């Protein structure tokens, strides 16, 4: 459960915001992609995003809040039966708290996982200004996502983490990602799909559903640049565990 939310969160908040048929190069595809989802300028203005969403499981709608502050932190909270659990990370630390099964204090996320997650704390997404960020992006040709032809781009982050991004050749929307991480001695792959794209008042086009093999996440609201600061990613004092020195 925790891992699913974590990966949805990372994927959800890094949705990149594309257009002629002869697009071949990485830069052309990326440019057209951003054109299609609201333009580079609109995406550049975004410093924080907060989403409210629900995940449906057997008819039960679990409310979920996801938030990200560019380069500083991200957090996902999920509420069920009056209890709220969370996972969040900053640029230095991270915590998991799942009270549902009796956990009383947050658990620290291993340092290696935090390092890998830094690359995902990027609201504009890994393709945005990728050269400055030190990402290596390779165009792997066209590939198919459930019958939809896509451009396939592979991003290798400085941490070594990899993300393969699938961009619909017709709409230039980013409809799928596969991320591969190697933290803590385990190689893990997660796949996320995006749909129901809507244009927000801020001018960007955002996917209002996200799936990663489990129950899909339906996004109800998107708040851009509203009230998220570094304090949002601090542990409640009552939950402060002993911190490793």
């Amino acid at each position, binding site marked *: 459960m925790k891992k699913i939310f974590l990966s949805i969160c990372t994927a959800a908040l890094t949705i990149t915001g594309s257009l002629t048929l002869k697009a071949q190069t990485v830069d052309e595809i990326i440019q057209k992609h951003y054109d299609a989802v609201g333009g580079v300028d609109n995406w550049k203005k975004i410093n924080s995003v907060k989403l409210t969403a629900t995940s449906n499981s057997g008819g*039960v709608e679990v409310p979920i809040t996801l938030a990200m502050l560019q380069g500083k932190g991200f957090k996902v909270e999920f509420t069920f039966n009056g209890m709220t659990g969370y996972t969040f990370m900053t640029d230095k630390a991270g915590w998991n708290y799942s009270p549902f099964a009796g956990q009383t204090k947050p658990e620290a996320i291993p340092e290696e996982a935090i390092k890998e997650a830094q690359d995902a704390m990027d609201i504009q997404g890994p393709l945005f200004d990728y050269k400055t960020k030190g990402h290596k992006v390779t165009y792997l040709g066209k590939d198919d996502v459930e019958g939809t032809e896509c451009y396939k781009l592979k991003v290798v982050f400085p941490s070594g983490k990899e993300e393969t991004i699938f961009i619909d050749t017709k709409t230039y929307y980013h409809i799928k990602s596969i991320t591969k991480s190697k933290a803590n001695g385990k190689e893990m792959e997660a796949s996320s799909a995006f*749909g129901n794209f809507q244009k927000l008042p801020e001018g960007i086009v955002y996917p209002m559903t996200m799936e990663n093999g489990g129950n899909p996440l339906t996004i109800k609201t998107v708040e851009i640049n509203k009230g998220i600061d570094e304090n949002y990613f601090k542990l409640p004092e009552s939950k402060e565990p002993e911190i490793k020195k």
Partner: protein
Amino acid sequence: MKQFFLLLFSTMFVGSMQAQTKVNSYTFGALEARWLGPGTMSGRTTAIVGVVSDNKTLYIGTAGGGVWKSTNAGASFKPIFDKYCMSIGAIAVDQANPSTVFVGTGESNMRNTVSIGDGLYKSTDAGDNWVKVGLDSTEHIAKIIIDPKNANTIYVAAPGPLWSDSKHRGLYKSTDGGTTWNKILYINEKTGCADIAVDPNNPDIIYATTWEFRRKPYSFSSGGMGSGMWKSTDGGKNWRELKNGLPVKPFGRIALTLAPSAPQNMIAIVEAKETGLYISSDAGETWKSQSATMNVVSRPFYFSCLVIDPKDPKRVYRPGFGFSYSDDGGYSFTDASYDGGWVHSDHHALWINPNYTNQMYLATDGGIYYSLDRGATWMFVYNLPVGQFYHVACDNSTPYRMYGGLQDNGSWMAPSAAPGGVNNSSWQDMYGGDGFWVQPDPTDSNIAYAESQGGNMGRIDLRTFKSVDITPQAGKDEEKLRWNWNTPIVTGQANGRNLYTAAQYLFKSKNQGRIWQRISPDLTTNDKKKQQQEESGGLSEDNTSAENHCTIFTIAESPLDENLIWVGTDDGNLQVVTDGGKSWINVSKNYEAAGIPAQTWVSSIEPSRFDKNTVYVTFDNHMYGDMNTYVAKSTDLGKTWTRIKSDEFTGFAHKIKEDLVNKGLLFLGTERGMFASNDGGARWFRMKNHIPDYAMVRDIQIQPKTNDLVIATHGRGIMVVNDITPIRMLTKDVVDQDVVLFDSKPMEITTGKYGGGGSPVSGGWYGGNPDNIAPIEYYLKERATKDVKLEIYDAEGKLVQSVPGTKRKGVNKVYWNLRWTPPKTATGSTKMDYGGFIAPMVLPGNYTLKLKVGDKEYSKLLSLVHDNSNKLFTVEDRKEQYDVAMRLYHMHEELYALVNKINAEQKTIKDNMDSLTRPQNKKLLKEYNTKLEELRSTLLATKHKSIFADEKKLREYITEVYGSVCGQECKPSNLQTERVAVLMEDLKKGQQTYEKLYAEYNTKTAAAIKDDKAKSKSPTPRSGN
């Protein structure tokens, strides 16, 4: 916003509205095949390479299942080559930069059933993505070596085509990382390169062996003057043949290796008139013959693996028929023990971890083994489902059972579904030898028929798995019976009592093989030139029935008429009889007129179940070097034929299958893929629904009750596509519509057919079960860019549940659990209550499905019926269960409301307590709070947080009964029903207690707060009741 979407939608779909929609590979992508294994018996594996720098990444090459990768030393594997050729000859990893991996396709263990490769592939991201880098026509690649000092230099040993002369063989070299290739050692069109070794200290020193070999449909030859051992000291520019100390030519296949830690020490197995082991200690300049065990020198064309320990030049390994090792540089050998269990014979690759040379992995005809004690004992890897089936059959039991024979690995059966899911323990080994055909007796569920190579066949009692030999014997004045390697034994499709088998003659039995009747003359060409198998093998005699020829390969009784029987032979004869076996007609000249070569192997015959005169046939001519896909149809009992062609087709054809319901729906299995047509064969698409693109598909069946498509692959075990009804329903008029919500058959209300302990399977291969509850299916012409959801309403129009939908182009499946939406359960506890995830199953009746795609809605009625197969649960039981469950459901909701009221009162108290200044007011609020808490603590767990602390209060007690009643298919017990009344009493008591407390305190406390605030003049908000 809406306008934007309408605009977007209209602009997106303009293009596709104009063109006719085609059914393609992705239309049925959601009908994903289940991979059922087995993993308990794996299949032939051909290559192993580990990543030296991490001790845990492994790449496994297989004979027919592609490449599998493990990143945890073998604890789990995943296939990483499923878009490409499934036959793997060699793998190499650039150990200095392990993201670079080469895969050479086309296995080089040149047995009769070896498949064909299509070139060399390269990945620069550790196997995530692949690019073909050439050598497309080599067909077989034996070894790839990356220069340890310069990764841009790569050598590829290509024996080349097995079935024909070819210039595309020899030793290839690239000096630009695989972009361009030069052939640096080439003998002639019959001789390829079988092995190569590069001196790690001086990579300009290269050793290579050349091999002259050829197969024909009826013989094999290993050996010729082209075979030899060669050395170059300038990176392959110039070559010198090594002869000193080696036997007299001609040679056959030569396996050669050097000691990585002392490369002047070399060892070779040279196939010759007398095959022997040879040792050199001067970098191959002189060789010395060494006595060797049978295992070291046996079957050199098939066992070409020889490895010296990376650190110890004296430790030599010979994976062959068995596993032998030497501690004295190859002077003497000992065999591995079976203390860790039997090690499958027939070994093809060994990888030793150079960092820890006790750890090694072995590739055999039965899968992968690993050793942690230098090869003395071995443990099997149970999680590689790469078995090589030839045929599959299904019976009519529930769940139906699948039967099939595996190359080198016997005959097996397994249920298609099982409690806990189909896993390794579900598979039963039922007959020995190489497995091919297994046929359940349609008239006797305790009996099945199986056979092993060369026509040995048995009748098996499925209760005991004891078998009786039922192989027909030659009669007086009859020629020796010629049995194909893969002899057919089949039951009648029109009359299940008929059992057929065939050598050159067709035999029929009506009593389970106790009495056989020969019902044909020799139906083959009986060409004596093709019957010299005792001479087969070349330098090493090798006659295992694999080359038996002029035999019957295919038998098919028409589903419409038991007297109409078709027979196909391996030498091109296609014969039909309409009178049960008296007057045979050879129609082979007729199919030749349609452009299919003579002598072609008749690989499958599918008499139509819709028309007696119609028949579909596949032909396989690869043994004459012709890899084309030959499929033909006749509608006049074979007098005239029409070729069925498609640009989609790849690989020689093994099987064509006509659907049982939709006569236009056809499936085709070839050596390189699974194809389907829903317009009678005019247009075809490759099936990619969790089926590897180039899967080797040997057989296809359709189970009539479940409509499952059951596929026998030669390298990926059995695959099952559950219920192909959506494929049948997707007719031309359907595919042109934007959205189609399919009609659902009346659906049984069930929690699923199987239970199980619930423990996850520890290790091994897990094939799972079909869907517990049938999915609701719909078709989208294009991928939905808007929200998709499915709403279910009852007969009164009440929303039962809303289920998120998927958005893929083609068929989509969503799952409704046939239950109401779960209740709200009381909050504010120290623990979560799982009652909030449970809902009662709905009652039988009519429901309305509303599929919402964006702002459009599509409706269908769904009829839910009681599951009458469960005799222990009647409709009346179900109603009683429903009644009890709903009472508990409503109790949860009432309790939720009650606790909410308490929570609200307590919140008000808490919000105001600190700001109160008058002691009597504080006291009053505390008193009210204490009494509320006393009540609350009787209603739900409030103290213990751990899941291991079993604090149960009213909420938990309700869930205890509610969970049991909702989760089972059974009338509630007397005590469960009575318990509801008890709990209802408790709930009422709680409600009454609250009302009393509220009446007593609410007004008073409100006044107290107001009074206190008035005095301090600082208003505080109050939450409502």
